[in-house]
């Protein structure tokens, strides 16, 4: 069920209607039934039902057991079993090809030819999300940070809460359980707030992202026909496409959840205003970063192995540099995992993993040098011009990494990079090849300007709050323009490709 499809909105409408009509103590049960329907809507089979059960039942039982032995050795073993079951299934369903490709490359090193046909296993929607969510559930119980859920149906709801299955955000049991199982009165203002966010999300996905996607597909699909300038445009547009698609989906999800009184954690905080890649990742896919920090990076850095390594490195390389080596090592592990989570292919591991690590490494190591150079050249690092340069640099670095993220293979990514330098080709923009006529380019430009203006306003606080403070005429004019734009300029229907949710594949 696509987030912008008619059927999804009918599904949400029906859920919300029943949710507020029935006695409040059954509200969570309505969410559970809806979540089960959503989970199996596109993909109902014995195999997918089994996939859900394989995670749910052990997590439920182990959660209760781990609670009895939190912070003890026995608890740790139970936790390891739980994580192994969840990760084992995830790896089997999503990463078999990655393992086989890696094996192939490794065997090639010792001159053994190994051929395999890629396997595609049907996996349940949201498996990359709920697998990590359930791991955090078990770990938090082990750490004594949260209690286990004694009711298996409530546990099932936490695992499968339908709004988050397509694009996240990652939820934590402690943050959401009161809202998820609580009683919620219908609140008109809350509903309006939620619906405006849904509208804005649809606008981002259907009007901006889908249209950018046509351009990006057009250029990437016919690389040899375009001058390098258009390839650069496609590279930049893909970053914007990814952002509007992903953050727009999150807006839809959060808006719907808000209507039902279930508050979800924010996943984006104006990432394109970031001055460094480090800052960028604090504002992009926030809940994934926080998950990896709390469940991978911190435990790894705090582990005895890393502590011993830190001690040795400090003795060898001095206090300051010594502590950096284990830190970078943990970071590298974390970034490779981020890349792998995004998809079981090297393109993802490079684009959303290793390259990001290299950027952050260079940023940290070159910062003192950059400071000195700027001082010598009398460049004011606090000036608007310099900050603008940093923001643009960050955007371009991220966009460059996204070439790999978008590419079909590493060699395809290299072809794209080579095409950037094809500046001797004719400069005319072949609109037919791109599939965007002049009537599409104008709404694209206008909607990008609208996005930029809204983001500028959002820097000084909630845009929705500001909107609701305006008088009724202005408020409704803006809302009507938004609705009108979605209806008229939304890319849907037979002539367009259906909007594929980029983040759903992970």
């Amino acid at each position, binding site marked *: 069920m696509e987030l912008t499809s008619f059927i999804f909105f009918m599904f949400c409408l029906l859920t919300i209607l029943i949710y507020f009509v029935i006695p409040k103590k059954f509200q969570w049960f309505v969410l559970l039934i809806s979540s089960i329907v959503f989970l199996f809507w596109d993909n109902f089979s014995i195999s997918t039902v089994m996939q859900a059960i394989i995670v749910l039942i052990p997590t439920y039982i182990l959660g209760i057991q781990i609670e009895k032995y939190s*912070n003890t050795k026995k608890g740790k073993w139970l936790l390891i079993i739980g994580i192994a079951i969840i990760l084992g299934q995830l790896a089997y369903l999503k990463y078999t090809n990655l393992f086989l490709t890696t094996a192939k490359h490794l065997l090639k090193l010792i001159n053994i030819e190994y051929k395999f046909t890629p396997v595609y296993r049907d996996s349940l929607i949201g498996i990359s999300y709920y697998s990590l969510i359930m791991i955090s559930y078990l*770990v*938090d119980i082990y*750490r*004594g*940070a949260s209690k286990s859920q004694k009711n298996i149906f409530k546990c099932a709801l936490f695992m499968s809460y339908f709004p988050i299955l397509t694009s996240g955000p990652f939820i934590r049991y402690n943050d959401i359980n009161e809202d998820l199982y609580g009683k919620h009165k219908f609140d008109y203002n809350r509903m309006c707030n939620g619906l405006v966010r849904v509208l804005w999300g649809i606008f981002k996905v259907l009007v901006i992202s889908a249209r950018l996607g046509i351009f990006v597909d057009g250029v990437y699909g016919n690389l040899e026909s375009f001058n390098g300038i258009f390839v650069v445009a496609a590279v930049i547009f893909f970053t914007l496409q990814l952002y509007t698609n992903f953050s727009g989906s999150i807006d839809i999800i959060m808006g719907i959840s808000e209507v039902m009184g279930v508050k979800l954690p924010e996943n984006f905080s104006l990432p394109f205003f970031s001055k460094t890649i*480090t800052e960028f990742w604090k504002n992009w896919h926030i809940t994934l970063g926080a998950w990896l*920090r*709390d469940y991978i*990076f*911190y*435990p790894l*850095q*705090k582990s005895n192995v890393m*502590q011993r390594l*830190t001690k040795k490195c400090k003795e060898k390389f001095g206090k*300051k540099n010594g*502590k950096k080596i284990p*830190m970078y090592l943990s*970071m590298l592990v974390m970034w490779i995992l981020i890349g792998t989570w995004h998809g079981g292919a090297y393109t993802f591991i490079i684009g959303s993993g290793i390259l990001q690590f290299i950027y952050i490494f260079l940023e940290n190591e070159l910062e003192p040098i950059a400071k000195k150079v700027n001082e010598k050249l009398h460049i004011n690092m606090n000036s608007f011009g310099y900050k603008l340069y940093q923001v643009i640099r960050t955007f371009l670095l991220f966009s460059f990494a996204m070439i790999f993220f978008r590419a079909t293979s590493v060699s395809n990514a290299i072809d794209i990079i080579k095409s950037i330098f094809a500046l001797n080709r004719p400069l005319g923009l072949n609109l037919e090849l791109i599939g965007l006529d002049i009537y599409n380019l104008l709404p694209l430009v206008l909607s990008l300007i609208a996005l930029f203006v809204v983001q500028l306003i959002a820097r000084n606080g909630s845009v929705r709050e500001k909107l609701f403070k305006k008088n009724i005429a202005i408020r409704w004019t803006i809302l009507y323009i938004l609705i009108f734009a979605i209806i008229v300029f939304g890319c849907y229907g037979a002539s367009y490709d259906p909007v594929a949710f980029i983040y759903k594949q992970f």
Partner: protein
Amino acid sequence: MEKEEIYERLNNVFRDIFDDESIVVTAKTTSNDIEDWDSLEHINLIVAVEQEFGIKFNMNEVTTMKNVGEMVDIIISRVNK
């Protein structure tokens, strides 16, 4: 161990980790008050505090402590056990 002593020893740890001799921490000090105190340095700080006081924070404490005051409360509860 008295609170004053803990704060004094914490000041030394903070100055050492963040390379800034002017740092003076109070119960209300948070990561917003110290420029280099980000999520990467946080874990280095935690480990250094653990070594200074010969205690262990559990991961829940590592990820949830909100200010130095909370850190001190945990230290007191551990060393005075």
